[in-house]
């Protein structure tokens, strides 16, 4: 399977945020735990709004969380 065009650092950022769980992150931005897992695994590209919300939770700019490899 080809590498996803959009990669992300969510797993690393969760770890650095005191081992925040996927469920905790999901609850803060209105996504399910499974959707956070799918985003981390590159199996789902979130909407722009969800991407900004995730970046906001970690206090990072969008491009520190998501990278475009196209």
């Amino acid at each position: 399977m080809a590498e996803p065009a959009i990669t992300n650092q969510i797993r690393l950022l969760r770890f650095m945020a005191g081992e925040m769980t996927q469920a905790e992150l999901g609850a803060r931005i209105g996504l399910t735990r499974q959707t956070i897992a799918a985003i981390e695994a590159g199996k789902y590209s979130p909407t722009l709004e969800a991407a900004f919300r995730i970046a906001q939770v970690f206090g990072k700019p969008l491009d520190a969380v998501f990278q475009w490899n196209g």
Partner: protein
Amino acid sequence: MFGISNIASSKIDMETVMPFREKLAWLSLGAMVVAYGAYFAVAAQLARSGAATPMTYLALLGAVLGAQALVVIVASIALAIQSGRDSRAPADERDRAIARRGAAFAYFVLLVGMVLVGCVLPFSARGWAIINAGLLALVLAEVVRYGAIVWSYRRGWHG
């Protein structure tokens, strides 16, 4: 210095747990394939025997619909209990995007099926053959819808 691979064993949060809506889609897909597979197998035998009356088909269809509904309702309740909090969570943007994708695929299957049933079949068939063809189009559209949903959950969806 640590990398992503080192983090994998930290708090995994049960990443591999199947979403509740995917479980429901699998359940609906399985129930539909089994129920209507049985219906069409028996209906084909009845058609070949030439002994079927409209009441025979109606009774068969009623039995299949009832059995399918019962299985889906009971299994959905069991899945909801087993899934706990996941089953009460509202659909998020991924769930909605996947549902839309399934409906979009199913629409074309239903469209082609209805054109065949409504515009082509009346020239060569009558009665329950047309009704069963219409039912088959509906079932195929639903199978495609649920198939697209489980495929999207399994393989990913970047819509």
